[in-house]
């Protein structure tokens, strides 16, 4: 596995002179040079795009470093991609750069003499055809077919005892031909065919991803003989995780370890997209510089596609630390993006022949296709499953009066549709939640923020809420991740799904904070022991199917809400019509029903005055009864009308002095108190806000009842008091009268409900019903306590804010 720290990897670059090689180390970015004997020298330059702190981590000392770096170094070389221009090769072969226009040798690796017995400087400017005339006479013909950037595998070449695999590619006008020494002359791509076929069949037959990764790893290990083969996968932030492993006992297991994104920086990932295979047969190698002719000397060779490309000494140090002198890595590409790597290691140095590497590349491409297929089918299976959950929820919502109940009463699908740990519905400021969520007050704050900062978005999704909303750091335990859809912008209605902080203990492959040693100097990591790092304030990421299904659910909810709104509008219209009808009805009742009673009374009065009746006691009594009955009927109609009006007419609220009101009522009731002894206790009744007329009706009624039902007492005792509780102002009227049986309490406040016979106590049976209705219209209550023969207390309350 390639491991480069973006900001401090040091590349080496050979500065050639005609006579000797001055071997120096260069920083990959700023090209500051160091003597090769002090590769750990600290120096400074700005952070590169490749340095990416894993989310949630603070790289305190790195940041401090970065600030220092920015202060004292120009940013000039950062846009270079230095890992592509090391200007040296690994020594297990040699390189010749040929001008494709005239076949002259323009560049050559310094070890040419070891292989072809020709001094590097001597070869420059020569005809390549002449150079290869004795060892590879066909080469020139073959080279003519090599096209730009395409790595061509040419016929092996034998020079003396050495056999070389030959590859060639073009960099502009330069044909780069690489000769790679191989140990084993006999095997060829053809001989690998049975193995490749078996591998392809196995890979296609794998059932689970875990199985797939293991099978692929196993076949690559069989082909290459590496001690350990890892399948390494990137997440969205380019952190890596080992998801598959095949190995023997020579090397330790790295399975499931995680590696910070900074381990494979952006420019390395870019290189891996272009050149799928990297190989280092021996980490202890001594790099061989490339010598170029005068014209090309200032311009380093772009070695993106070179198989012999030399790598950073920092990386080599990593490999030595890992105890893996030999490595190979192959890119796994999915949809043109780097999905992961197949990373091979060996406990001793090891070469992998070109044709074996080609077979591995082929297998990895098959693996990549399988991964893509599986991801796609897993994705669609997941979508189908979620769509099913969506339909289930839709059914539940349709069955309830309010869609909110359809969600809240079925937490399993409600949470399951997004694999959330908690969820909440906020409708017009009212919040209801299931599962693990922040408190309602916190959700209110969150919705407030969504409504202002994210008011244009129908969807808000994050796996680190505190990044956008700092105060959410306090709710990380329940709401590190949030998926929110807005139902109505006007009413601030949202459905929210929450995910807790993944205080998952991640097995980091290396501690991202520990890339410098304790002396404060830059140094490669020396330990690959598992380093546990907690990812703070982050949740599991939300997947596309989860997000898409939640959006579909949102649309369903909106259509339900809209349908409900239409139904509600219909209902409101109907209610309006019924109310108007009722009003017309009571209007005509009030007019037309009263008239006949008035006529009966009127004519009966006239009749009573007729001379014929003047002396007839019996006739006089009959007429009086007629008058009295008509009177009663008229009062009933009036009472009923008053009751209906209490429910209909609008309240005109104002502060009312209750003691004044009670005094007025008692004045009206004076006739009823003639010849009575009543002990009054009237407390400080204070002030209350309400409809004065209605309050008058209440006290008139309660006082009149108290006077009426206590008339059997020699000394009646009536108390009118006020009490203020936590939420209410309560007025009470008690008497020591005949009382009532609590069993019939329910009847007391009903219309036309009476507990006494008419002869005992007259009345219409509407008074208390009216009191109750007035209380309700003021947001209060009316109730009573009593005992038969032992007095009664009637209560009338209004909310405290009515003071």
């Amino acid at each position, binding site marked *: 596995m390639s491991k480069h720290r973006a900001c401090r990897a040091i590349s080496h670059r050979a500065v050639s002179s005609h006579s000797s090689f001055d071997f120096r180390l260069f920083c990959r970015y700023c090209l500051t040079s160091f003597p090769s004997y002090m590769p750990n020298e600290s120096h400074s330059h700005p952070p590169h795009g490749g340095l990416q702190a894993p989310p949630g981590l603070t790289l305190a000392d790195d940041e401090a470093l970065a600030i220092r770096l920015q202060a004292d170094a120009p940013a000039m070389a950062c846009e270079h991609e230095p890992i592509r221009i090391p200007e040296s090769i690994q020594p297990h072969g040699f390189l010749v750069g040929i001008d494709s226009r005239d076949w002259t040798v323009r560049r050559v690796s310094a070890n040419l003499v070891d292989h072809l017995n020709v001094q590097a400087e001597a070869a420059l400017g020569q005809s390549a055809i002449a150079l290869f005339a004795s060892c590879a006479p066909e080469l020139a013909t073959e080279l003519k077919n090599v096209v730009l950037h395409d790595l061509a595998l040419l016929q092996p070449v034998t020079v003396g005892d050495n056999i070389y695999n030959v590859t060639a590619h073009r960099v502009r006008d330069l044909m780069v031909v690489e000769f790679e020494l191989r140990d084993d002359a006999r095997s060829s791509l053809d001989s690998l065919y049975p193995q490749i076929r078996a591998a392809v069949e196995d890979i296609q037959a794998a059932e689970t991803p875990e199985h797939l990764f293991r099978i692929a790893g196993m076949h690559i290990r069989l082909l290459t003989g590496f001690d350990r083969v890892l399948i390494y996968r990137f997440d969205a932030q380019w952190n890596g995780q080992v998801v598959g492993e095949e190995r023997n006992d020579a090397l330790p297991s790295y399975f499931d370890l995680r590696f910070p994104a900074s381990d494979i920086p952006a420019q390395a990932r870019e290189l891996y997209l272009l050149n799928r295979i990297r190989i280092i047969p021996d980490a202890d190698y001594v790099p061989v510089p490339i010598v170029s002719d005068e014209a090309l000397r200032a311009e380093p060779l772009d070695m993106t596609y070179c198989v012999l490309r030399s790598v950073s000494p920092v990386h080599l140090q990593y490999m030595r630390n890992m105890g893996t002198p030999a490595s190979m890595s192959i890119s796994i590409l999915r949809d043109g993006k780097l999905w992961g790597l197949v990373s091979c290691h060996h406990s001793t140095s090891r070469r992998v022949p070109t044709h074996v590497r080609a077979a591995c590349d082929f297998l990895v491409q098959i693996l990549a296709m399988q991964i893509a297929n599986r991801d796609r089918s897993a994705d669609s299976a997941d979508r189908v499953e979620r769509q099913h959950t969506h339909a289930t929820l839709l059914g539940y919502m349709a069955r309830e009066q309010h869609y909110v109940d359809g969600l809240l009463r079925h937490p399993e699908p409600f949470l399951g549709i997004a694999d959330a740990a908690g969820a909440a519905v906020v409708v017009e400021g009212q919040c209801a939640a299931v599962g693990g969520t922040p408190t309602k007050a916190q959700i209110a704050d969150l919705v407030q923020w969504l409504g202002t900062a994210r008011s244009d978005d129908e969807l808000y999704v994050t796996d680190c809420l505190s990044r956008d909303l700092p105060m959410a750091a306090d709710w990380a335990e329940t709401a590190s991740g949030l998926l929110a859809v807005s139902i109505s912008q006007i009413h601030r209605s949202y459905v929210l799904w929450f995910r807790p902080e993944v205080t998952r203990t991640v097995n980091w492959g290396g501690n991202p904070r520990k890339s410098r040693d304790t002396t404060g100097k830059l140094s490669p990591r020396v330990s690959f022991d598992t380093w546990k790092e907690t990812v703070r304030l982050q949740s599991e990421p939300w997947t596309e199917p989860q997000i898409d299904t939640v959006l579909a659910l949102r649309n369903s909810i909106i259509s339900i809400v809209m349908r409900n709104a239409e139904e509600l509008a219909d209902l409101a219209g109907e209610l309006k019509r019924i109310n108007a009808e009722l009003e017309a009805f009571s*209007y005509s009742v*009030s*007019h*037309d029903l*009263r*008239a006949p*009673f*008035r*006529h009966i*009374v*009127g*004519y*009966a*009065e*006239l009749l009573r005055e007729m001379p014929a009746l003047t002396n007839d006691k019996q006739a006089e009594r009959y007429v009086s009864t007629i*008058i009295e009955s*008509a*009177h009663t009927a*008229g*009062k009933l109609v*009036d009472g009923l*009308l008053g009751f209906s*009006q209490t429910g209909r*007419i609008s309240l005109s609220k104002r502060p009312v002095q209750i003691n004044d009101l009670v005094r007025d009522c008692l004045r009206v009731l004076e006739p009823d108190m003639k010849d009575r002894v009543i002990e009054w206790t009237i407390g400080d009744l204070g002030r209350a806000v309400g409809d004065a007329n209605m309050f008058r009706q209440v006290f008139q009624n309660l006082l009149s009842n108290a006077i009426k039902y206590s008339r059997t007492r020699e000394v009646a005792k009536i108390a009118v008091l006020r009490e203020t509780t936590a939420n209410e102002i309560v007025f009470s009227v008690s008497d020591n009268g005949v009382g009532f049986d609590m069993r019939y309490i329910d009847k007391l406040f009903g219309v036309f409900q009476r507990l006494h016979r008419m002869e005992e106590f007259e009345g219409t049976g509407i008074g208390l019903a009216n009191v109750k209705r007035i209380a309700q219209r003021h947001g209060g209550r009316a109730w009573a306590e009593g005992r038969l023969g032992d007095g009664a207390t009637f209560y009338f309350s209004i909310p405290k804010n009515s003071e």
Partner: protein
Amino acid sequence: MLKKLLLVEDNPKDLELTLVALERSLLANEVVTARDGVEAIDWLFCEGAHAGRDREDPAVVLLDLKLPRMDGLEVLAKIKGDPATRHIPVVMLTASREEADLVRSYDLGVNAFVVKPVDFQDFFKAIRDLGMFWAVLNEPHPGRRPPDVPMKVTEV
């Protein structure tokens, strides 16, 4: 010459009882009765059947609310809407204390609004008070009509 009273009432029983009440008030004024809103307006404005009548405004109009053809509120609106009749006192006599009617009547400029009591004694008292106030107190004293002379009632 005492001014007349205009009583507008469609219900014959109410009409009779009201006239009895007025009779007992011992008012000397002549009472003119109209049985619906149109009749009342024609008489007041000397139109239709009363075109050419000598224009003479009544001391008061006792007006029932619910009337055939043109209801009491419309009659009230016409009287109070015309500068020639605006000064004529109008007392609304109605069967109920329906809030909307009350508000509307006062909006239109009614001079009094009386709910006919069920009790005849109360009714009698109410009519007598009305008659006294509008026909008597509201005018220079007309001199009492002797009790044995019947009250003059004319239909419009």
